[in-house]
């Protein structure tokens, strides 16, 4: 068939295997070439869907994402059980380790590190942990947690100095330092695609988040008895297990992905906006949390605020990755391969003709199985 948009002769399918455009679709759901309603890494979702796993685990296919999702829910259920049992110390530790551990398994599953697991994991996760330890220790030295109790009978007062330090200075410093491990990775030429930069940045951010959680809660871990009344610890645990690692990982991933795009010669408003949004989101997360906490606002509202910020960052990551996949997958040649999304054995270029998944976001094991084709079987070899 001839693609409606790039006007190339391509194998029959719902999507053009060269440019990924949705064939024969009406414009009611948007531009078929841009296909915002078909996220390039997971075409069953809209780009603006704040999904966690299909955003931060882009190499996972449709089937595997469900398994990781269930593993995450099992981990959350365990945290809930520990909280209900009053084992708060254990719940804090599980919360800190859950998402980084899942990501480590994902890196193994997708073999993002190619043939250099020690180097890549050492620089990204390990580097993030190292920087997290140093930065968090310094933050503990400069923070004054007992500076002011406030007057609950005289009206709410916000500690402006504390909010500026915790909500502005520290987030900016963290966003600058967290990206360093991924940006100085040796042999970056082995990881040329934006999706590689995104994943490496997320790994560094999650390593930082793990160290920050352990150091930040070290006093609490040492002071709490084995069993305490659960109280309202659940709010702290939700932030620790879900929102904080997602923010740290996705913000760092967004910045590193934008830098990867720049190294490919792309520095448009999208890339600059991505970096700005990552920093602003972190500031908004920290500032909003401090102000709402000083004002003694209900903890549920604080969680809602944090969730809204994280959702916005996830959508920004999806937009950047979607556009980069549309551009970069278009330059792949024809090959026999397996689509990681629909698991069909296909002959395709950059996109699966059936489901539209960008084949450049496939696990490395799938990429290695690609058998390039110069001439398809049964074709006349005519050039058009």
């Amino acid at each position, binding site marked *: 068939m001839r693609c409606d948009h790039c006007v190339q002769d391509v194998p029959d399918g719902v999507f053009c295997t060269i440019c990924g455009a949705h064939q024969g679709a009406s414009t009611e759901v948007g531009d078929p070439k841009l296909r915002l309603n078909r996220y390039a890494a997971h075409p069953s979702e809209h780009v603006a869907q704040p999904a966690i796993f299909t955003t931060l685990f882009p190499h996972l296919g449709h089937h595997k994402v469900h*398994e990781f999702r269930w593993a995450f829910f099992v981990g959350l259920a365990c945290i809930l059980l520990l909280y209900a049992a009053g084992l708060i110390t254990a719940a804090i530790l599980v919360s800190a380790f859950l998402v980084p551990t899942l990501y480590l398994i994902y890196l193994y599953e997708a073999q993002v590190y190619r043939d250099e697991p020690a180097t890549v994991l050492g620089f990204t996760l390990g580097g993030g942990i190292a920087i997290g330890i140093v930065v968090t220790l310094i933050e503990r030295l400069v923070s004054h947690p*007992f500076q002011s109790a406030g007057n609950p009978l005289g009206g709410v007062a916000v500690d402006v100095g504390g909010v500026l330090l915790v909500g502005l200075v520290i987030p900016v410093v963290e966003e600058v330092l967290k990206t360093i491990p991924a940006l100085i990775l040796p042999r970056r030429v082995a990881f040329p695609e934006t999706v590689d930069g995104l994943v490496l940045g997320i790994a560094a951010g999650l390593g930082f988040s793990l160290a920050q959680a352990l150091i930040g809660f070290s006093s609490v871990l040492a002071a709490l008895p084995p069993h305490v009344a659960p109280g309202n610890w659940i709010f702290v645990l939700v932030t620790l297990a879900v929102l904080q690692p997602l923010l740290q990982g996705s913000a760092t991933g967004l910045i590193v992905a934008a830098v990867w795009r720049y190294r490919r010669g792309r520095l448009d408003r999208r890339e600059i906006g991505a970096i700005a949004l990552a920093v602003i989101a972190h500031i908004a997360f920290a500032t909003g949390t401090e102000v709402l906490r000083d004002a003694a606002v209900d903890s549920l509202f604080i969680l809602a605020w944090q969730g809204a910020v994280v959702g916005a960052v996830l959508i920004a990551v999806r937009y950047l990755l979607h556009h980069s996949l549309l551009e970069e997958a278009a330059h792949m040649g024809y090959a026999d391969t397996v689509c990681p999304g629909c698991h069909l054995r296909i002959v395709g270029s950059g996109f699966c003709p059936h489901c539209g998944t960008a084949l450049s976001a496939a696990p490395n094991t799938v990429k290695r199985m690609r058998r390039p084709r110069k001439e398809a079987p049964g074709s006349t070899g005519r050039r058009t």
Partner: protein
Amino acid sequence: MSAQVCQACGASNEPSATACRVCGRALSREAAAAAAGLPTPAGYPSPSYVVGLPVAPEAVHRTSWTNLLGLVAALVLVLTAGGIGVALIAGHFAGNGQTAGIAGSSNQGSSSRLATFVPQGQTESNAALSVVLPPGWSVSAVNGETITLTDPDGTGSLTVGSGRSSQAQSAQQNRDAIDRYYEGKYPDTAPCPGSQDAPGILNGADGLFWTLCFTVTTGAQSFPGACALFSGATSDGGVYYLVEELTARDNLQNFVAEAAPVVESIHWNLS
């Protein structure tokens, strides 16, 4: 091979590009086909039908779902054991910490007033109260109803407040409002172990003494904190009195002792 120029917008594109990177229109078909070096598979059957593939492809995934769930379960078990172990070991070395209340006040319910020791130092005051600062203490905030002081080591803060209540409230009602404030700010707020609530008088103000323990979270940092509190009110509930001594949980006794001279110097202007 030289760069391709888009006929529509004039943008320069890579030699192997098939579509313009600026406007998206297809570049010269002949140039695209020649640059790709591959014949377009005209007349090719459905892409799901692959013939002649000599070897069945390897499995796409490396981690089975059982291994995945097993790893998560193992993580939970190991960290649960570790968390309990850390808490037991830390508790063994911490010993029994006694929780102190605000010093320099009568906790026995009598109306007697202790002989006060007035420290030498700077006096800080507002419309509602005045307090004398010993050497080393500093004022961190002052407004019409509240004075907040910091000790020389910076290990805690002493907040003294007084003012007209917006609606008449007894000391108990003021105490309830303070408890709700702390519970909203620090979700795990609870009375400190071993502490006792007691009525009493602080420099002429009738009220209640108690302590609260909680986890202070600022940014990503968390610290176990404690606060020794006094909440008082006039008999008609029109004026409130407040003293808060906030510090680390294991430092409460020391901080209360250190702040005792300051607390004893408090003079309430409103009655």
